[in-house]
């Protein structure tokens, strides 16, 4: 074994050691590394009363109600992860991206009546980016409604030429 080979083996052994130590540590602390809890996590593992935590999921379609109390806007909506839903109330201004079907993360506490009182609401957007005409074409084709959740996979998206063809057909 040359010196070089020995150094390489030593380095690989150290790498495996550091890598697996990190992996074990991250797995152990996995519950604390999540930014938010999903609604179904609350039924599975209910947090102690009064504990401040983040709740995340999609804003359920048709659940958003806006009222005002004095001059403060009040929003109530349901957050869902498909398996469970939690009713959230929030007094304050919602972020611009907040809407039904959009992801959201709310900071607050669970009330005794099972609703979640949020002191801060963030909007979480998904990883899709598309121009307005592609989104409009998708909505028009009936494949997707923004309030129902994230858009379909990119392979289902209309191509620009298809959008152009549809536009000329509608125009003529």
């Amino acid at each position, binding site marked *: 074994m*040359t*010196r*070089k080979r020995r*150094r*390489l083996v030593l*380095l690989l052994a*150290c*790498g495996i050691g*550091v*890598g697996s130590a*990190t992996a074990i540590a*991250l797995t152990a602390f*996995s519950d604390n*590394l*999540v*930014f*938010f809890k*999903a609604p179904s996590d609350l039924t599975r593992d209910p947090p102690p009363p009064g504990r401040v935590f983040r709740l*995340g999921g999609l804003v359920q379609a048709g659940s958003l109600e806006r009222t005002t109390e004095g001059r403060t806007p009040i929003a109530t909506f349901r957050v869902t992860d498909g398996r469970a839903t939690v009713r959230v109330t929030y007094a304050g201004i*919602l*972020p*611009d*991206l*907040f809407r039904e079907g959009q992801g959201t*993360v709310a900071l607050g506490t669970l009330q005794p009546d099972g609703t979640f009182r949020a002191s*801060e*609401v*963030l*909007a*979480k*957007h*998904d*990883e*899709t*980016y*598309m*121009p*307005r*005409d*592609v*989104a*409009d074409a998708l909505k028009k084709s009936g494949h997707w409604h*923004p309030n129902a959740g994230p*858009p379909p*996979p*990119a*392979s289902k*998206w209309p191509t*620009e030429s298809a959008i152009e063809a549809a536009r000329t057909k509608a125009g003529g």
Partner: protein
Amino acid sequence: MENVSAFGPSERPTRQTPAGPKRRGPNLHRFANPGRFLRLSGAILPWLTVIGIAVTAFGLTWGLFFSPPDWQQGDTVRIMYVHVPAAWLASAGYFSLAVCAVLSLVWRHPLADLAAQEIGPVGAVFTAICLATGSLWGKPMWGAWWVWDARLTSVLVLFFLYLGQIALIRAFDDPQRGYRAAAILALIGSVNLPIIKFSVDWWNTLHQPASITLTGAPTIAPAILWPLLYSAIGYTLVFAAIVLARLRAAVMERRVRTLLLARADHAASGAGAVAA
């Protein structure tokens, strides 16, 4: 890393077994010759700089002024053309630090140490750009400048790893000790790279998952994707050009220092001879 053994003669050629397999392929120690490195890099650098700046300008102009706005984020999505390539280069730069660390620790390649010394500050700047533009993007879209989710936190850790590497490699009077310590730090820090990449898949985060994956079609419409890719290629070329320019300066600086030391030695021994 299959052709690892092809990296060339060990520093002690006499120890090599003559019966060993004939080594083929590129010999990285060729570039350890500073004269050859300076000649070669001097020929590449102007092209790299010009093409890098041109492609970056093309990609950013397309992205910032001519690409369509996103259907829900509107014009704010244009921050992506600055933010995402910077984020890629931040990780890629640290990966190149780790490669330099292996080349330095195992093969004792002299240029790898200098490269690590010069990559550090450039990578840190790109990480800072990524963090700053991400923050500017987060406020209007998410509603927060900063959150402690796994993606943002792991990129902040990457920034501190860069700062640590920059400080450590310059911290010793004997540069060799600094090179070795910084190489070990770079290798240990590289466990952070998969954490950054997969943080959005392993844990729930506010940051959205990757739009461009190896397995599926990108979830970015072509009109937005193309300027992003041009911008990313341009950033990469500019990153390489900055590192190469810094590396050339470092090699020349080392040369000047060696020449000055040799002259001082010569003068000292000459004076000693006269005194004797």
